[in-house]
């Protein structure tokens, strides 16, 4: 028996340090690998790789304006990323953030047009709350179907994504009640006090992302520091054992599902406050699904999600500039997202590769020594 406890303290520390660094290195390596493959694609399509990459980086961080836009782009996917993570860690595969986002957005847009002259803090809170409530409600239906009828949530949430799309489209269509006289298929603009103001000159950056960071921290507290979060994670890791220990697993799952929907809904309402000021048909270009990539890259943890959402936001912002200057299509970002998902999901890990290599060397050494023992017999 290899006795791990007998190892000297120094070795134990070194090993755990290697483990942690390795864990952080994996997402970075995933990004690097994805960028490498992306560069190959760019090269094949005949574009200038160097130009593409430099315009990507400049487009993301080059000046205050770009930086601000990167953060604005990061905000909605921070929320959909958190939404996916909360559900995922609780044993639920919520790929319905798309629909929950839309529903939250239009709810926020509607509430934002209801009153006049409310102070910003109050009104914005109401709008975000509306987004949370309706996002949670949109998640409630698939949650109930899952626990009462055993229907798998994946298909239901995808159906609800589509239904949300068509329903919100109708709400702002010419026959819909939320259009209220706008010339475009959109809600009227919300009251100005609802909209965020830029913080810095020459930059569109506003408090939106930072509110998101606060919410991310709150999610961290909920999942790891509260009773409810403990139970959700238990159910997510091992449903049977959690039930056996006395946890009401169904309640946990519904709570988690609704929390997840609420987060996506806040994200939608946030877009209203932060960027557009109104809801229009075609509001979400796939934020729900991008959130999945963001969450995975961030190891489904609020801290990681903060970092990866900034990364993806920057990627998208830079990609637009890349399209203008180097002619490479914006959708390359989707390809990069998919590659990152693949690399992270396959848990291709530098630490594992190194330890496998060391293991092979060790085996060769022991077989050498056993051969030398046998040398006499042969």
């Amino acid at each position, binding site marked *: 028996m290899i006795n791990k*406890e007998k190892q000297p303290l120094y070795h134990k520390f070194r090993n755990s340090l290697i483990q942690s660094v390795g864990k952080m290195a994996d997402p970075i390596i995933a990004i690097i690998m994805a960028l490498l493959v992306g560069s190959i694609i760019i090269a094949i399509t005949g574009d200038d790789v160097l130009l593409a990459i430099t315009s990507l980086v400049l487009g993301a961080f080059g000046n205050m304006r770009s930086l601000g836009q990167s953060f604005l782009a990061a905000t909605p996917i921070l929320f959909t990323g958190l939404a996916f993570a909360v559900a995922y860690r609780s044993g639920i595969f919520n790929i319905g953030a798309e629909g929950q986002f839309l529903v939250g957005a239009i709810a926020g847009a509607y509430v934002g047009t209801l009153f006049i002259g409310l102070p910003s803090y109050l009104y914005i809170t109401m709008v975000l709350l509306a987004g949370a409530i309706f996002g949670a409600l949109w998640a409630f239906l698939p949650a109930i179907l899952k626990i009462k009828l055993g229907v798998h949530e994946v298909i239901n949430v995808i159906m609800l994504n589509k239904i949300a799309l068509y329903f919100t489209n109708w709400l702002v269509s010419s026959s819909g009640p939320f259009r209220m006289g706008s010339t475009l298929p959109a809600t009227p603009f919300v009251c100005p006090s609802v909209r965020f103001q830029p913080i810095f000159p020459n930059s569109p950056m506003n408090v939106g992302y930072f509110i998101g960071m606060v919410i991310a921290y709150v999610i961290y507290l909920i999942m790891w*520091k509260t009773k409810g979060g403990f139970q959700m994670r238990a159910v997510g890791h091992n449903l049977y054992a959690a039930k056996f220990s006395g946890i009401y697993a169904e309640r946990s799952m519904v709570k988690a599902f609704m929390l997840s929907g609420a987060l996506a809904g806040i994200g939608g309402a946030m877009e209203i406050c932060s960027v557009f000021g109104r809801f229009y048909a075609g509001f979400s270009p796939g934020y729900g699904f991008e959130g999945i990539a963001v969450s995975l890259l961030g190891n489904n943890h609020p801290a990681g999600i903060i970092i990866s959402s900034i990364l993806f936001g920057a990627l998208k912002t830079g990609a637009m500039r890349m399209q203008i200057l180097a002619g490479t299509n914006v959708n390359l970002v989707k390809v990069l997202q998919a590659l990152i998902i693949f690399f992270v999901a396959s848990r291709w890990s530098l630490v594992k590769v190194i330890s496998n290599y060391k293991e092979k060397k060790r085996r060769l050494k022991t*077989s050498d020594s056993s051969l030398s023992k046998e040398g006499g017999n042969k």
Partner: protein
Amino acid sequence: MREPILRLENITKVFPGVLANDQVNLEVQEGEILALLGENGAGKSTLMNVLFGLYTKDDGAIYFRGEKVNITCPKDAIKLGIGMVHQHFMLIDNLTVAENFILGSEPTERGLLSLKQAKKIVNQCSKEYGLSINSDSLVADISVGEQQRLEILKSLHRGAKILILDEPTAVLTPQKVEELYKVLRDLKSKGHSIILITHKLKEIKDISDRVAVMRSGKVVGVHETATVTAEELAELMVGRPVVLEVTKERQKTGERILEVNNLHAKDYRNLTALNGCSLHVKSGEIVGIAGVDGNGQSELLQVLSGFIVRDEGEIIINNRNLPRKFAQKEVYDCGVGHIPEDRMRMGIIADFTVEENLLLGFENDERYSSRYFLKKDAIHNRAVNLIKEFDIRTPSPLTEGGKLSGGNQQKVILAREISKNPNLLIAAQPTRGLDVSAIEFVYQQLLEQRKEGKGILLISFELDEIFALSDRILVIYGGEIIAEFTRSEATVKEVGLCMAGVRRKSND
């Protein structure tokens, strides 16, 4: 000297953190029954899985009839004539006996499966070896004994000259075990070699020609069965003299803390699993339920934890009548602790830390949480104390539960359940997969609880365990308790006959 049909030389197999096989040398002769004896974790199953190609060895060589062979997958082993019957059968539940039999070597007629031919092959084989099975039944519907016969026939049909059996008697009554012995002796006379993996000394004495003892990954002794005693084997197995008897003090029993009356319930396939099961447990006694796997034990446990809703019957715990549908939490609230039969699936959350695993079930306790938040320090101190009290070997309370050894995981579960201070402790297969020192520890804890006046319901497949611990021994058969003995009046033979359904006995 006769060349052995099989020779394993310096076989080494490493798993993360465990040296499962450490330069193992073993020979198997043609036409002999070799027993491979060792405790759980000694490396016997690993060695045989290496031989059968399910594991790849890290070092060493295998010689078949003197020639070196390379076994990298079961296909290679089968080609050489090695067959294996696993402890948990390799059968597909929702396919028929015939379909399972031909899987991998299906007879075809113009490209399509010929189930007619398959049936013929099964019946032929069955006749040839004298093992009866029904080719048309679904595997899910046949008895465990029949499933075992199917597994043996499968191996023989594929040309097994060397047959490996992994703990074959775990699922059989004492009478069925005799039938199996007859089959094995028959095969031996036909020239087959049989490797019998077991931890039961009696079996070895009954059937084997030679016995190889393994301990901590090494072979520590090979003897002719006739010339070695059970005590010597036991000592080799554990490395020190073993006292197999458990001393129990007489204990006064009190009120009934568990009463089960006329329980009827179905299993997950909607077949009757409990058929009027009735029993009771008083405080201060250990009631052991003996029985062959598949007679309703699992379903009884699942009904008692709320996972299966009973069709009929009463469950009264601490004078509380449980409603028809209830959640496990309600049971625990009645003052119950429950050590589950499958610790990895039901008892431990592998990704949770030891601290968190110890907290399961206690997260609402006001000592460890306020209205919403968990009290970190209190939880940590609880873990530190329990780790000390129950001698849980773990690098730290923050180690993941999945990284602990089986014995230590069981200790975590014990610590957690006992710290609930329950009046009723349900212990299902509490020593499954544990080594001797862990088993001793569990026995101590259970007896301690009994001394403190708790009632314990013990369900186990190990008859020795039932006999060692129980004050009263019940036998479950066909979903009913068909026999009840006091410890003093119980004999293995009588209990065995009841386990087989041959006798019934009620206590008057």
